[in-house]
Each structure stands twice: as structure tokens, then as C-alpha cells.
């Protein structure tokens, strides 16, 4: 019969103390690597989570379109709805919850509750709001194409970007002399950088 000598208590205590010392000397806790390799990077998830409220919150504004804008608004509502279905599929694939991280936010191109209330009082503001939305989502689509990782998400961004360019032209045609003339432009169409105000 073989017996395995048990570790004397004193040694166990020493060993425990050594472990404690080691633990105390260990450098700052090593942060865990991000969850198992997902094809989605931080840009992908930020874009998906922003585009869903961008599209969703535009829909009630489109319902306020005056007669001359109604056909275009109806088209836009339809294509935005299709995009929403694709965006929500991507959100599911990325394992994101259905929570809207931008609830209540006031952001460029996002139709807020306050914007909607304003448009109900004065629907004449709709073309400018629409244009801001279209330009902002085109800008976001470029950001996703430049910095996103997931192939399908980038493809959707490319198709949304192309659609927004065409829609901006259609809007201009539907509202001759209305849009882009007296409007203060919060979102220049070509470069986000042009909005940077530098302090010197």
C-alpha cells in the first residue's frame, strides 16, 4: 500500500502565503479579450444600432407629407421599411438586444419627438428635415464602409449610401426651389471634417 504523504500544514500555509504575495505582485488584472471572434466590429454595431432609429423615426414624419411630396414620401417609407427589416436581421445576427441606445437623443438626421411635434405644427419644414436625414445617413453609410468589418453590414451600407444619393436628387426634383437655398446646412454633403471648428 502506498500512501501519499500529505503536505504538512505549515507548508500549506507557506504555499498559501506565497500565492498571496504572488497575487499582490501581479500586474493590473489582465482585461479579458472581447467575446469570441465576431465578424462585427464596434463600427458595425454602432452603425446598425443608429440606423434602426434613424429609419424608424422618419416614418411618422413621412406620413405628414403635403400632397406634392406624398408620392416620394410613400416610396421612401417603403424602401426605409425594407432596409429596417435587413438592419434588424443584422442586429439579430450580431447578437444585439432590441434596445434603442439612442432613445430620446437629439442627433443630426434623427427625427426626435420634438422634431415631429414641430413638423405637425408646420409641415413646411419637412423637406429640410428629409434632406438632413438623407445626407446624414449617406455620411454614416460611408463611415461604415470605411471602418466596418462585417461583409453583409458593409454591403448594406453601400446599398443604403447609393439609395440616399438617388433619394436626395429625387427630393430636390420634388421640391424645386425649396430645399438647399435658404437652409442652414448642419450636414455638408461631402466631408464630415468640414464641420470641425478648430480653436487656435
Amino acid at each position, binding site marked *: 500500500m502506498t500512501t501519499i504523504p500529505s503536505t504538512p500544514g505549515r507548508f500549506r500555509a507557506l504555499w498559501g502565503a506565497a500565492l498571496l504575495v504572488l497575487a499582490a505582485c501581479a500586474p493590473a488584472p489582465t482585461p479579458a*479579450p472581447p467575446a469570441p471572434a465576431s465578424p462585427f466590429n*464596434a463600427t458595425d454595431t454602432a452603425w446598425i444600432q443608429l440606423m434602426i432609429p434613424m429609419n424608424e423615426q422618419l416614418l411618422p414624419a413621412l406620413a405628414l407629407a403635403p400632397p406634392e411630396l406624398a408620392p416620394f414620401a410613400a416610396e421612401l417609407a417603403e424602401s426605409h421599411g425594407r432596409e429596417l427589416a435587413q438592419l434588424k436581421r443584422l442586429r439579430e445576427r450580431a447578437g444585439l438586444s432590441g434596445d434603442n441606445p439612442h432613445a430620446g*437623443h*437629439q442627433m*443630426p438626421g434623427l427625427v426626435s419627438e420634438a422634431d415631429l411635434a414641430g413638423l405637425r405644427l408646420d409641415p413646411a419644414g419637412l423637406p429640410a428635415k428629409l434632406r438632413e436625414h438623407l445626407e446624414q445617413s449617406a455620411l454614416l453609410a460611408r463611415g461604415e464602409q470605411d471602418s466596418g468589418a462585417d461583409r453583409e453590414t458593409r454591403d448594406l451600407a453601400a446599398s443604403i449610401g447609393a439609395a440616399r444619393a438617388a433619394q436626395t436628387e429625387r427630393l430636390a426634383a420634388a421640391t424645386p426651389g425649396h430645399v438647399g437655398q435658404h437652409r442652414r446646412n448642419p450636414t455638408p454633403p461631402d466631408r*464630415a471634417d468640414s464641420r*470641425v471648428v478648430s*480653436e487656435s
Partner: protein
Amino acid sequence: MSRTLRTLAATAAAGLLATALTVVTQPAQADELVTHHEFQANCSVTAHRPDDPIVFPGLPGASHMHTFLGNSSTNASSTTASLKAGQTNCKTPDDKSAYWFPSLYNGDQLVVPDFPQVIYYKSGILKYQEVRSFPAGIRFVVGSPTATQEQFRTAPGAVEGWECGNSAHNWDFPSYCPPGSQLNVRYQAPSCWNGRDLDSADHKSHMAYPDRATLVCPATHPVPVPMLEFKIAFPVSGDMSRVRLASGRGYTWHYDFMNAWDGPTLQALVSHCVNGGLQCDPRGYDQYKPHRGAALGPDYRLPR
């Protein structure tokens, strides 16, 4: 990834040792009254951009307008590495961190803080001797752009709300401020880290506030790190009825931090000023306790 982090951690640990050997600081004497445990970062405005590298990484133009302090390279695509390669106007040149908050407007006029702003690094816990340095690469958001007025008033980070002249404890902008006065806000950040994540899905839940009664970190977030307190002064006064934040009303105040400090420099300031119970300037010097010396050299850098 984890190997890189381990190497980084090892480098930081080596740096710490070197720090301990090069900078000799006198410990607090038993008879010395400890009234503060802090140092300041002093950083000026660099730019205003509709960018947020934490919430909208890689998406320039996605955010409401933010006013940035410190590192002039900060933009939507900033990473720890890009920040470390950038330049800063912070008084302590090895602090390449990014600091930002929603821009403030008076009507349509941008209001720009016009002198170096104070960002305190304090102890949020009772045992200030146990506060540790920030881990490399940590980032988080403080406060919420969607807070209600009641949430802003009762938030654990609330100090005195918006202040100007003799008026304080305003949980939205005061309606009037004495001409020539500045509109001030102070707000404290959570200072307990979960010890694991440098960021989280909501950019907040890897951090927590200490228990309000005991000033001890909760078991879920056991690692005490410096408590940031932004103290921002906006040059706007008189009729305040048109003053607003890019994120909305005064109670939507929030701010963001991406750590890009040189590790040993931050460690030296935390050890000397926070753990050492001093009221330090950006050089880690307490003018009321000159015999305690400074954490950094005359050039605001670690002697190397």
C-alpha cells in the same frame, strides 16, 4: 490580444519599479492632517466635432456636437494607439488622454471654454491609500444624455449642478447669470472598475460608483481607480434662456474619457497625490505642503 496585453502589463510593471526607484517622495507624516487626495489635469479646448470615438467608433459625423479637450488628434476613429501618437495641450505632456463633452450653445452661438479646464483625479473611496492607477486603454461615459432632471439631480455623480455667481444647485441652466460670470458645472465619475473590461456595451457598466454610505467599492466592481471630476467653465452670462447643450437641456450633461496616459506618469501622480493625501497641481505638487515635493519634474514629466 491577451499576449499583447500581458506584455503591456509587464512593461507597465517594469515602469512602476523604475518610477519607485527614480522619484523619491516623502510619505505623509502621522501628525499631518489629510484634507485632499487629488491632482489636476489642466487641458484646453482643441476642437468641436460631431464625433464620439466611444459611442460611434469609426463613424465621423454620427454624434451630436462635442467639445474636445487635450489630445488634438481625437476623432471618430481614435484608438489608444492613435491617441498615444497624438499631441496634447494638457499641462502634463504625457497625458495623451481624450476628454470630451456635449458642446454648449447660446442660441446658435457656440460657447467655448476660454482657459485650461480642470479635470480632477480624486479618491472616490474612503481608503484613498488603496486607489490604483487606471488600466491602459480604459474608456467610459459619465452621466447620460437621456437623463431626466430628477435623475441628474439625484445622480451619484452630482455635485452642485450648474453654478454661476452665487447661484448653485441648479439642475438645469439658471435663467440669469451676473454679467461677466461664467457658467460652471462639476460632475463626478464612477471610480470602481470591474477589473476585467476596458469598455462595455453601454460604455458604463464596467464602472460603478462606490457605496454612498460606506464609500467602499461594490463586490461586482472591486478595483478602486481615480475618480474623475470634470469642472468646466463656460463664458456665457446675462440672459440664459437660449443656452442649451448639443444633447439638450442642462440635465443631459455627460462626458467621456479615453485613457491614454503614459502608465508610469499616471502611477506616479496617483501614488504621490491620491494615495499620499495631497492637493496637487498638474505636476503633482501641493503648494500647501511644499516639503512633500512633486511627483514630476519641472517639465511636468517623470525624471527618466
